[in-house]
Protein backbone atom coordinates (compact mmCIF):
# COMPACT_ATOMS: atom_id res chain seq x y z
CA UNK A 1 0.00 0.00 0.00
CA UNK A 2 2.46 2.60 1.18
CA UNK A 3 4.82 1.88 -1.69
CA UNK A 4 2.18 3.18 -4.09
CA UNK A 5 1.63 6.51 -2.38
CA UNK A 6 2.49 9.45 -4.54
CA UNK A 7 2.68 7.42 -7.74
CA UNK A 8 0.16 8.07 -10.45
CA UNK A 9 -1.57 4.82 -11.39
CA UNK A 10 -2.21 4.12 -15.04
CA UNK A 11 -5.68 2.49 -15.36
CA UNK A 12 -4.49 -0.26 -17.69
CA UNK A 13 -1.74 -1.19 -15.26
CA UNK A 14 -3.96 -1.26 -12.18
CA UNK A 15 -4.15 -4.59 -10.46
CA UNK A 16 -7.49 -5.00 -8.73
CA UNK A 17 -6.65 -8.21 -7.00
CA UNK A 18 -3.66 -10.43 -6.43
CA UNK A 19 -3.29 -12.30 -9.70
CA UNK A 20 0.12 -13.75 -8.94
CA UNK A 21 0.61 -17.44 -9.55
CA UNK A 22 1.06 -19.25 -6.27
CA UNK A 23 1.18 -22.85 -7.41
CA UNK A 24 -2.48 -23.77 -7.41
CA UNK A 25 -3.13 -26.94 -5.39
CA UNK A 26 -5.25 -28.92 -7.83
CA UNK A 27 -5.65 -31.93 -5.53
CA UNK A 28 -6.97 -29.91 -2.56
CA UNK A 29 -9.33 -27.92 -4.78
CA UNK A 30 -10.87 -31.07 -6.23
CA UNK A 31 -11.23 -32.96 -2.95
CA UNK A 32 -12.84 -29.90 -1.37
CA UNK A 33 -15.24 -29.52 -4.29
CA UNK A 34 -16.14 -33.19 -4.05
CA UNK A 35 -16.59 -32.92 -0.28
CA UNK A 36 -19.13 -30.11 -0.80
CA UNK A 37 -20.89 -32.34 -3.32
CA UNK A 38 -21.06 -35.17 -0.78
CA UNK A 39 -22.52 -32.80 1.82
CA UNK A 40 -25.28 -31.87 -0.62
CA UNK A 41 -25.78 -35.59 -1.21
CA UNK A 42 -26.20 -35.86 2.56
CA UNK A 43 -29.02 -33.32 2.28
CA UNK A 44 -30.81 -35.70 -0.11
CA UNK A 45 -30.55 -38.42 2.52
CA UNK A 46 -31.80 -35.98 5.17
CA UNK A 47 -34.88 -35.37 2.99
CA UNK A 48 -35.40 -39.13 2.55
CA UNK A 49 -35.06 -39.77 6.29
CA UNK A 50 -37.60 -37.01 6.90
CA UNK A 51 -40.01 -38.65 4.46
CA UNK A 52 -39.47 -41.95 6.28
CA UNK A 53 -40.07 -40.32 9.67
CA UNK A 54 -43.38 -38.91 8.36
CA UNK A 55 -44.58 -41.96 6.37
CA UNK A 56 -42.89 -44.76 8.31
CA UNK A 57 -46.03 -45.73 10.24
CA UNK A 58 -48.49 -45.50 7.36
CA UNK A 59 -48.90 -49.23 6.83
CA UNK A 60 -52.31 -48.96 5.07
CA UNK A 61 -53.21 -52.41 6.41
CA UNK A 62 -50.06 -53.89 4.83
CA UNK A 63 -47.03 -55.42 6.53
CA UNK A 64 -45.45 -53.45 9.38
CA UNK A 65 -41.77 -52.62 9.83
CA UNK A 66 -41.46 -55.14 12.66
CA UNK A 67 -42.90 -57.89 10.43
CA UNK A 68 -40.60 -57.51 7.44
CA UNK A 69 -37.32 -55.96 8.69
CA UNK A 70 -34.57 -58.32 9.82
CA UNK A 71 -32.15 -56.41 12.06
CA UNK A 72 -29.84 -59.45 12.28
CA UNK A 73 -29.25 -59.38 8.53
CA UNK A 74 -28.85 -55.60 8.70
CA UNK A 75 -26.15 -56.04 11.38
CA UNK A 76 -24.29 -58.39 9.02
CA UNK A 77 -24.63 -55.78 6.26
CA UNK A 78 -23.29 -53.15 8.68
CA UNK A 79 -20.17 -55.24 9.25
CA UNK A 80 -19.72 -55.71 5.48
CA UNK A 81 -19.87 -51.94 4.85
CA UNK A 82 -17.51 -51.19 7.74
CA UNK A 83 -14.92 -53.82 6.72
CA UNK A 84 -15.10 -52.65 3.11
CA UNK A 85 -14.45 -49.08 4.27
CA UNK A 86 -11.57 -50.36 6.42
CA UNK A 87 -10.08 -52.17 3.42
CA UNK A 88 -10.30 -48.97 1.39
CA UNK A 89 -8.53 -47.17 4.24
CA UNK A 90 -5.69 -49.73 4.02
CA UNK A 91 -5.54 -49.04 0.30
CA UNK A 92 -4.99 -45.34 1.12
CA UNK A 93 -2.18 -46.30 3.51
CA UNK A 94 -0.56 -48.24 0.66
CA UNK A 95 -0.99 -45.16 -1.57
CA UNK A 96 0.83 -43.09 1.04
CA UNK A 97 3.84 -45.37 0.62
CA UNK A 98 3.47 -45.52 -3.17
CA UNK A 99 2.75 -49.29 -3.18
CA UNK A 100 0.84 -49.96 -6.34
CA UNK A 101 0.15 -53.65 -5.56
CA UNK A 102 -1.05 -52.75 -2.05
CA UNK A 103 -3.46 -50.13 -3.41
CA UNK A 104 -4.88 -52.56 -5.97
CA UNK A 105 -5.17 -55.51 -3.59
CA UNK A 106 -6.97 -53.55 -0.89
CA UNK A 107 -9.31 -51.98 -3.45
CA UNK A 108 -10.09 -55.54 -4.60
CA UNK A 109 -10.89 -56.54 -0.99
CA UNK A 110 -13.08 -53.44 -0.55
CA UNK A 111 -14.82 -54.29 -3.81
CA UNK A 112 -15.58 -57.89 -2.81
CA UNK A 113 -16.97 -56.85 0.60
CA UNK A 114 -19.04 -54.06 -0.99
CA UNK A 115 -20.34 -56.49 -3.60
CA UNK A 116 -21.32 -58.93 -0.81
CA UNK A 117 -23.30 -56.10 0.80
CA UNK A 118 -25.09 -55.34 -2.48
CA UNK A 119 -25.75 -59.08 -2.90
CA UNK A 120 -27.42 -59.28 0.53
CA UNK A 121 -29.54 -56.25 -0.30
CA UNK A 122 -30.61 -57.63 -3.68
CA UNK A 123 -31.54 -60.89 -1.96
CA UNK A 124 -33.58 -59.05 0.69
CA UNK A 125 -35.54 -56.98 -1.81
CA UNK A 126 -36.06 -59.85 -4.26
CA UNK A 127 -37.50 -61.83 -1.36
CA UNK A 128 -39.84 -58.96 -0.34
CA UNK A 129 -40.99 -58.38 -3.92
CA UNK A 130 -41.67 -62.08 -4.45
CA UNK A 131 -44.04 -61.99 -1.45
CA UNK A 132 -45.95 -59.08 -2.97
CA UNK A 133 -44.37 -56.57 -0.55
CA UNK A 134 -43.74 -53.82 -3.10
CA UNK A 135 -43.24 -50.03 -2.75
CA UNK A 136 -46.75 -49.14 -3.96
CA UNK A 137 -48.34 -51.22 -1.16
CA UNK A 138 -48.05 -48.48 1.53
CA UNK A 139 -46.40 -45.20 2.48
CA UNK A 140 -44.05 -47.08 4.77
CA UNK A 141 -42.92 -49.40 1.97
CA UNK A 142 -42.45 -46.53 -0.51
CA UNK A 143 -40.24 -44.63 1.93
CA UNK A 144 -38.40 -47.80 2.99
CA UNK A 145 -37.62 -48.95 -0.56
CA UNK A 146 -36.55 -45.45 -1.61
CA UNK A 147 -34.14 -44.82 1.22
CA UNK A 148 -32.49 -48.25 1.33
CA UNK A 149 -32.22 -48.55 -2.43
CA UNK A 150 -30.83 -45.01 -2.78
CA UNK A 151 -28.04 -46.05 -0.43
CA UNK A 152 -27.68 -49.34 -2.35
CA UNK A 153 -27.37 -47.45 -5.63
CA UNK A 154 -24.59 -45.35 -4.09
CA UNK A 155 -22.83 -48.60 -3.17
CA UNK A 156 -23.17 -49.87 -6.76
CA UNK A 157 -21.70 -46.64 -8.14
CA UNK A 158 -18.87 -46.88 -5.61
CA UNK A 159 -18.09 -50.40 -6.86
CA UNK A 160 -18.14 -49.19 -10.45
CA UNK A 161 -15.79 -46.35 -9.50
CA UNK A 162 -13.42 -48.81 -7.79
CA UNK A 163 -13.29 -50.97 -10.90
CA UNK A 164 -12.52 -47.91 -13.06
CA UNK A 165 -9.81 -46.73 -10.64
CA UNK A 166 -8.17 -50.17 -10.56
CA UNK A 167 -7.83 -50.04 -14.36
CA UNK A 168 -6.56 -46.44 -14.28
CA UNK A 169 -3.98 -47.16 -11.57
CA UNK A 170 -2.75 -50.14 -13.61
CA UNK A 171 -2.51 -48.11 -16.80
CA UNK A 172 -1.27 -44.73 -15.58
CA UNK A 173 0.24 -45.22 -12.12
CA UNK A 174 0.02 -42.48 -9.49
CA UNK A 175 -0.33 -39.28 -11.52
CA UNK A 176 -1.98 -36.13 -10.08
CA UNK A 177 -5.29 -37.06 -11.72
CA UNK A 178 -5.29 -40.63 -10.44
CA UNK A 179 -4.37 -39.53 -6.92
CA UNK A 180 -7.15 -36.95 -6.58
CA UNK A 181 -9.67 -39.47 -7.95
CA UNK A 182 -8.55 -42.04 -5.37
CA UNK A 183 -8.89 -39.41 -2.62
CA UNK A 184 -12.39 -38.54 -3.82
CA UNK A 185 -13.36 -42.21 -3.96
CA UNK A 186 -12.15 -42.51 -0.36
CA UNK A 187 -14.50 -39.66 0.62
CA UNK A 188 -17.35 -41.26 -1.33
CA UNK A 189 -16.83 -44.74 0.11
CA UNK A 190 -16.34 -43.63 3.73
CA UNK A 191 -19.46 -41.51 3.34
CA UNK A 192 -21.52 -44.64 2.59
CA UNK A 193 -20.58 -46.02 6.03
CA UNK A 194 -21.90 -42.86 7.73
CA UNK A 195 -25.19 -43.07 5.82
CA UNK A 196 -25.48 -46.76 6.64
CA UNK A 197 -25.12 -46.01 10.39
CA UNK A 198 -28.31 -43.92 10.03
CA UNK A 199 -30.12 -46.48 7.85
CA UNK A 200 -29.30 -49.29 10.29
CA UNK A 201 -30.28 -47.29 13.38
CA UNK A 202 -33.30 -45.32 12.22
CA UNK A 203 -34.85 -47.94 9.94
CA UNK A 204 -33.78 -51.46 10.85
CA UNK A 205 -33.35 -51.08 14.62
CA UNK A 206 -36.10 -48.52 15.25
CA UNK A 207 -38.49 -50.55 13.08
CA UNK A 208 -38.12 -53.59 15.29
CA UNK A 209 -38.66 -51.73 18.57
Amino acid at each position, binding site marked *: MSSNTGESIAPDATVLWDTGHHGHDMISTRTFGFWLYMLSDAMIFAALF*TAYAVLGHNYAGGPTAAQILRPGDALAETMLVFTSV*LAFGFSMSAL*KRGHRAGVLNWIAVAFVLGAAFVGMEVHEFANLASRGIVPERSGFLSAYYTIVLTHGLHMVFGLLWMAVMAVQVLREGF*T*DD*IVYRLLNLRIFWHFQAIIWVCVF*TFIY*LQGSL
Partner: protein
Amino acid sequence: MSHDRPSPLDHPEVQMASSSRYVVGFLVSAALMALSFFIVRQRGLPALDAQVVIAVIAMAAVLIQSYLLFHLNFSETQRWHTAAFVLTIPLFILLVGLSMWMFHALAARTMIPGMH
Protein backbone atom coordinates in the same frame (compact mmCIF):
# COMPACT_ATOMS: atom_id res chain seq x y z
CA MET B 1 6.05 -32.54 -15.17
CA SER B 2 9.19 -30.52 -14.49
CA HIS B 3 11.73 -31.73 -11.95
CA ASP B 4 10.74 -29.19 -9.26
CA ARG B 5 7.13 -30.42 -9.09
CA PRO B 6 6.43 -32.47 -5.99
CA SER B 7 5.00 -35.96 -6.35
CA PRO B 8 1.22 -36.13 -5.80
CA LEU B 9 1.95 -38.82 -3.22
CA ASP B 10 3.55 -36.13 -1.01
CA HIS B 11 0.24 -34.25 -0.88
CA PRO B 12 -0.90 -33.82 2.75
CA GLU B 13 -4.26 -35.48 1.99
CA VAL B 14 -2.41 -38.60 0.83
CA GLN B 15 0.05 -38.49 3.70
CA MET B 16 -2.68 -38.16 6.34
CA ALA B 17 -3.80 -41.78 5.69
CA SER B 18 -3.30 -43.86 8.83
CA SER B 19 -4.07 -47.54 9.20
CA SER B 20 -4.23 -47.34 12.99
CA ARG B 21 -6.87 -44.57 12.82
CA TYR B 22 -8.91 -46.66 10.38
CA VAL B 23 -8.67 -49.78 12.56
CA VAL B 24 -9.74 -47.86 15.69
CA GLY B 25 -12.56 -46.21 13.71
CA PHE B 26 -13.73 -49.60 12.50
CA LEU B 27 -13.59 -51.26 15.93
CA VAL B 28 -15.37 -48.41 17.72
CA SER B 29 -18.14 -48.02 15.15
CA ALA B 30 -18.67 -51.80 14.86
CA ALA B 31 -18.86 -52.04 18.67
CA LEU B 32 -21.36 -49.15 18.83
CA MET B 33 -23.63 -50.70 16.19
CA ALA B 34 -23.46 -54.08 17.94
CA LEU B 35 -24.37 -52.33 21.19
CA SER B 36 -27.42 -50.69 19.56
CA PHE B 37 -28.43 -54.06 18.14
CA PHE B 38 -28.08 -55.66 21.58
CA ILE B 39 -30.18 -52.91 23.24
CA VAL B 40 -32.99 -53.40 20.71
CA ARG B 41 -32.78 -57.20 20.86
CA GLN B 42 -32.79 -57.41 24.67
CA ARG B 43 -35.90 -55.21 25.00
CA GLY B 44 -34.66 -54.20 28.46
CA LEU B 45 -35.62 -50.54 27.93
CA PRO B 46 -39.02 -48.99 27.18
CA ALA B 47 -39.32 -48.41 23.41
CA LEU B 48 -39.10 -44.62 23.67
CA ASP B 49 -35.97 -44.72 25.85
CA ALA B 50 -34.35 -47.28 23.54
CA GLN B 51 -35.12 -45.00 20.58
CA VAL B 52 -33.30 -42.09 22.22
CA VAL B 53 -30.36 -44.27 23.27
CA ILE B 54 -29.79 -45.77 19.80
CA ALA B 55 -30.12 -42.30 18.20
CA VAL B 56 -27.41 -40.97 20.54
CA ILE B 57 -25.21 -44.00 19.77
CA ALA B 58 -25.68 -43.40 16.01
CA MET B 59 -24.68 -39.75 16.39
CA ALA B 60 -21.59 -40.82 18.35
CA ALA B 61 -20.67 -43.27 15.57
CA VAL B 62 -21.11 -40.53 12.93
CA LEU B 63 -18.87 -38.13 14.88
CA ILE B 64 -16.21 -40.78 15.50
CA GLN B 65 -16.17 -41.69 11.80
CA SER B 66 -15.99 -38.00 10.83
CA TYR B 67 -12.94 -37.59 13.01
CA LEU B 68 -11.12 -40.88 12.39
CA LEU B 69 -12.09 -41.71 8.79
CA PHE B 70 -12.74 -38.27 7.28
CA HIS B 71 -9.89 -36.64 9.26
CA LEU B 72 -12.14 -33.67 10.06
CA ASN B 73 -10.00 -31.43 12.26
CA PHE B 74 -8.61 -27.90 12.35
CA SER B 75 -5.35 -28.55 10.49
CA GLU B 76 -4.41 -26.36 7.55
CA THR B 77 -5.49 -28.91 4.92
CA GLN B 78 -8.73 -30.02 6.59
CA ARG B 79 -9.99 -26.80 8.19
CA TRP B 80 -12.46 -25.93 5.42
CA HIS B 81 -13.71 -29.49 5.13
CA THR B 82 -14.55 -29.28 8.83
CA ALA B 83 -16.14 -25.83 8.47
CA ALA B 84 -18.34 -27.01 5.58
CA PHE B 85 -19.42 -30.05 7.62
CA VAL B 86 -20.21 -28.04 10.75
CA LEU B 87 -22.15 -25.44 8.75
CA THR B 88 -24.22 -28.22 7.14
CA ILE B 89 -25.46 -29.38 10.57
CA PRO B 90 -27.90 -26.43 11.01
CA LEU B 91 -29.21 -27.20 7.52
CA PHE B 92 -29.92 -30.79 8.58
CA ILE B 93 -31.68 -29.58 11.71
CA LEU B 94 -33.80 -27.11 9.73
CA LEU B 95 -34.66 -29.60 6.99
CA VAL B 96 -35.51 -32.57 9.21
CA GLY B 97 -36.84 -30.68 12.23
CA LEU B 98 -39.05 -28.17 10.44
CA SER B 99 -40.47 -30.74 8.01
CA MET B 100 -41.36 -33.16 10.81
CA TRP B 101 -42.87 -30.40 12.91
CA MET B 102 -44.93 -29.27 9.93
CA PHE B 103 -46.25 -32.75 9.19
CA HIS B 104 -47.00 -33.50 12.84
CA ALA B 105 -48.93 -30.24 13.10
CA LEU B 106 -50.76 -31.09 9.90
CA ALA B 107 -51.70 -34.57 11.12
CA ALA B 108 -52.81 -33.20 14.49
CA ARG B 109 -55.03 -30.52 12.93
CA THR B 110 -56.59 -32.59 10.16
CA MET B 111 -57.13 -35.77 12.20
CA ILE B 112 -57.15 -37.99 9.13
CA PRO B 113 -58.64 -41.32 10.26
CA GLY B 114 -56.13 -44.12 10.37
CA MET B 115 -53.14 -41.77 10.55
CA HIS B 116 -52.50 -42.54 14.21
